[in-house]
């Protein structure tokens, strides 16, 4: 099974610091160990770049923000006490720099940050067009969701085409929704830490996440449908 083998490889990818805990990594960095620095740069820069893209209008600016973040890491290393994980600390530094940068680069991002909600959805953040809106069957599904088959997440993740469609859907989200879903779902940061990093309330964070997930699910639904039909 080619698919199973691919999935296995994806899960078997070694962590660069398998044998070191974070305090040891930090100690090596403080001592100026270049190999360790190269490893953390390789491990985290992709995630930093992806998060930066949720704040600033272009990849070039995002790359600059990532560089500024690493410079911030040098400066902060001596003071970092390890109360949060290293990754969360990186995301916090990046978010602060990206916000400043985003506000300077483009006014609409700045405005969005002020209100904390740059959302054009009214109401609940549910796709109202999925539900019957009037009559005795109001609130019922117009077209009931069907079951996606078991290998769905793995198959989606391995498809370049679907991956690109998801990325496009995420890029099209309002900025704060994109920031929340990037941290919470793409990076797996806890909701509490997402609130700390972004400086939003728990409720606000959840509303943004809900709207973002609802939209991304809709994008995936078109692929899942095609897939189950092709099995028939």
């Amino acid at each position, binding site marked *: 099974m080619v698919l199973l083998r691919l999935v296995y490889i994806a899960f078997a990818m070694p962590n660069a610091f398998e044998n070191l805990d974070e305090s040891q990594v930090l100690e090596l960095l403080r001592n100026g160990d270049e190999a360790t620095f190269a490893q953390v740069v390789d491990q985290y820069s*992709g995630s930093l*770049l*992806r998060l930066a893209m949720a704040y600033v209008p272009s990849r070039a600016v995002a790359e600059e923000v990532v*560089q500024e973040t690493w*410079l911030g890491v040098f400066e902060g290393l001596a003071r970092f006490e390890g109360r949060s994980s290293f990754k969360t600390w990186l995301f916090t530094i990046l978010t602060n720099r990206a916000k400043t940068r985003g506000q300077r680069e483009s006014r609409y991002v700045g405005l969005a940050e002020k209100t904390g909600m740059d959302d054009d959805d009214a109401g609940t953040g549910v796709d109202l067009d999925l539900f019957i809106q009037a009559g*005795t069957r109001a*609130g019922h599904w117009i077209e009931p*969701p069907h079951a996606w088959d078991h290998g769905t997440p793995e198959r989606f993740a391995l498809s370049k085409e679907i991956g690109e469609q998801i990325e496009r859907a995420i890029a099209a989200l309002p900025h704060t929704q994109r920031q929340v879903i990037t941290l919470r779902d793409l990076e797996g940061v806890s909701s509490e830490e997402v609130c700390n990093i972004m400086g939003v309330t728990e409720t606000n964070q*959840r509303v943004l996440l809900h709207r973002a*997930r609802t939209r991304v699910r809709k994008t995936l639904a078109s692929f899942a449908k095609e897939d189950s039909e092709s099995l028939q």
Partner: protein
Amino acid sequence: MNYNLKQQAMTYMAGNLTCQEVASIITEYLEDAMPFSTRLRFHLHLGLCFSCRNYLKQMKYTIQTLGKLPTEPIAPEIREELLRRFRHWKKDNP
């Protein structure tokens, strides 16, 4: 039982949540931020509603898919520049 009555009985047993309401609070459920009584009604609805069970599964699959999206590495010249800066930083702050 006529359709309406049956529908009403179903709605009552499903804790009075409509499918639309279930969809609108699904993230509260998944993020474990739901009051106990709502959670109960949510479960009641799911127990009776095949469509919402499918929707919940779709949402979980969506989240799992997002967690598997690969990142792109940064440009090699940026990486080199960062390593160079790290060397200099260490020299200036021994």
